[in-house]
């Protein structure tokens, strides 16, 4: 009898044993760890992994002594800024220390100060003899719109004592009910009063907010990649274009059109420019701005867009540009000088088609204008599973080291690469 019960028990537990066996023998998928940190680069370039598993590593900057400061989107052990120090210059940071009790994205160094942003404020820290005085940050900008969506505040500095802060629109296309099918576009869009643009503030004034700042450019949905081009003394940025044309307007846009439209736009940001969000988007196949469907658009109409400023270059839709860097170093070959590296976080809004992006591109420049077509510079970040959730890494930040190396950050896991040119 007992014997029989055991037999029944054994038979009943077979499926369980089977499941256990399967899971324990299922080989763990190995992350491809090549000698250069799992990515691919053009011939003549190599890379090291400076640091790994830092968390959500967003933008980063390198001080003149080589110390790298990484802004984290969320605190790790209570710290929001990590300092990586590679004193022996072997391409691997021996020391990782942290400070700053706020998460965020923006970080920059200019004239002896480190600047960093939370999703509402901008702080600065004095740098004395290559050490950041972490004890007494000054809050220079405060009270910026933060409604979670497009909340990161990217920063860039000019050579005249100004700091530029992107304030992303907390919205897809300024509908009355954001992202809802059938909801009308608000006209005029009230979001543009306090967001949807780049604001200019003074670097040396405390507690500035909207009243003290200047709305430098408007009509921008969201920007993460923002940089000052010292070659021509102008501000540039790459926009995250709108989402979901097909889901919201299936009668106007096919899935394939929605996957490609709108273009991700590269802007030269002259003071006073209006790039048209939310009323317009750029159609890279027609080479013009057309009305958004929330504002009477039908893929063709352009009456809301004729006075809007145009991009200086466009990329395929939804790639997600998270960093822009004008390369001014001498280490890389001549063609890279003053050109633009862009870190593409990688798409999600191209589903159900294959996702794209998840790489770093290079666009050559001459006199502040693109002088050729883009090429993929660093690739392979996603690995085999090119989806936002399955990607190994997602490029998010770019910085140039004093020796001319390019530093790349990833905010999926927090890997930092140092890319160098060897010519071999």
């Amino acid at each position, binding site marked *: 009898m007992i014997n029989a019960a055991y037999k029944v028990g054994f038979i009943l537990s077979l499926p369980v044993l089977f499941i256990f066996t399967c899971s324990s023998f299922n080989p763990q998928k190995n992350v491809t760890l090549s000698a250069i940190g799992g990515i691919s680069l053009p011939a003549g370039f190599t890379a090291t992994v400076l640091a790994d598993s830092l968390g959500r590593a967003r933008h980063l900057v390198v001080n003149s002594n080589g110390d790298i400061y990484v802004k984290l989107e969320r605190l790790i052990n209570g710290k929001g800024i990590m300092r990586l120090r590679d004193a022996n210059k072997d391409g691997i940071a021996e020391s990782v220390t942290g400070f700053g009790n706020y998460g965020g994205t923006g970080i920059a160094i200019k004239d002896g100060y480190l600047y960093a942003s939370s999703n509402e404020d901008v702080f600065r820290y004095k740098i004395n003899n290559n050490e950041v005085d972490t004890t007494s940050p000054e809050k220079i900008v405060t009270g910026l719109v933060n409604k979670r969506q497009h909340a990161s505040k990217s920063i860039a500095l000019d050579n005249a004592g100004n700091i530029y802060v992107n304030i992303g629109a907390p919205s897809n296309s300024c509908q009355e009910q954001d992202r*809802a099918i059938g909801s009308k576009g608000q006209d005029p869009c009230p979001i543009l009063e306090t967001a949807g643009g780049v604001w200019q503030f003074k670097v040396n004034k405390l507690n500035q907010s909207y009243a003290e700042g200047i709305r430098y450019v408007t009509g921008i949905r969201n920007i993460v990649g923002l940089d000052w081009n010292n070659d021509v003394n102008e501000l540039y940025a790459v926009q995250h274009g709108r989402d979901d044309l097909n889901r919201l307007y299936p009668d106007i846009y096919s899935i394939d059109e929605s996957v490609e439209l709108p273009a991700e736009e590269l802007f030269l940001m002259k003071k006073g420019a209006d790039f048209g969000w939310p009323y317009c988007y750029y159609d890279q196949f027609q080479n013009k701005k057309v009305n958004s469907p929330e504002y009477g658009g039908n893929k063709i109409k352009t009456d809301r867009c004729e006075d809007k400023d145009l991009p200086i270059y466009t990329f395929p839709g939804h790639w997600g540009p998270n960093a822009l860097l004008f390369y001014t170093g001498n280490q890389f070959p001549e063609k890279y000088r003053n050109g633009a590296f862009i870190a593409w976080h990688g798409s999600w809004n191209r589903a159900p088609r294959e996702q794209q992006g998840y790489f770093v591109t290079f666009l050559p420049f001459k006199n502040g204008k693109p002088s050729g077509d883009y090429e993929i510079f660093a690739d392979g970040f996603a690995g085999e599973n090119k989806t936002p959730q399955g990607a190994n890494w997602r490029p998010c930040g770019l910085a140039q080291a004093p020796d001319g190396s390019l530093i790349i950050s990833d905010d999926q896991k927090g890997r930092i690469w140092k890319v160098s040119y060897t010519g071999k």
Partner: protein
Amino acid sequence: MKKVFFTFLTGTFFLLIAWMQPAVPKATMERGKVVYDKACLSCHMPNGLGVPRMAPSLSKSKYVLGTKTKMIRIVLRGSEELPVNEDRDFTNPMAPILNLTDQQLADVLTFVRNSYGNRASVITAADVKYVKARMN
């Protein structure tokens, strides 16, 4: 030893019960997937795993596997119905879904409750109607 054996036996028994639950009719799943592809896929992705920090995964989600009422309320009220905290800091809001019939909602919710590794009870059009009537 005996205790371990009986725990094992009981566990296995409940697993069997779970397996014996009537499968969701194929037609319901197919109708649900059609609705999912149009209304949900864009953010929650073809594999239901969402977009990190932007749109949550539906796989093994406690809201997907929770009560029918809560899940119906989430689609009718959007992300307003959900808390925001350290574990749930998704940046893209979900709009209330008001353009689907009770039957379409029932189909898509049943599809999600029984896809992406989920297993939960069927939601019917009558369930949707019942919850709708008690909202506002």
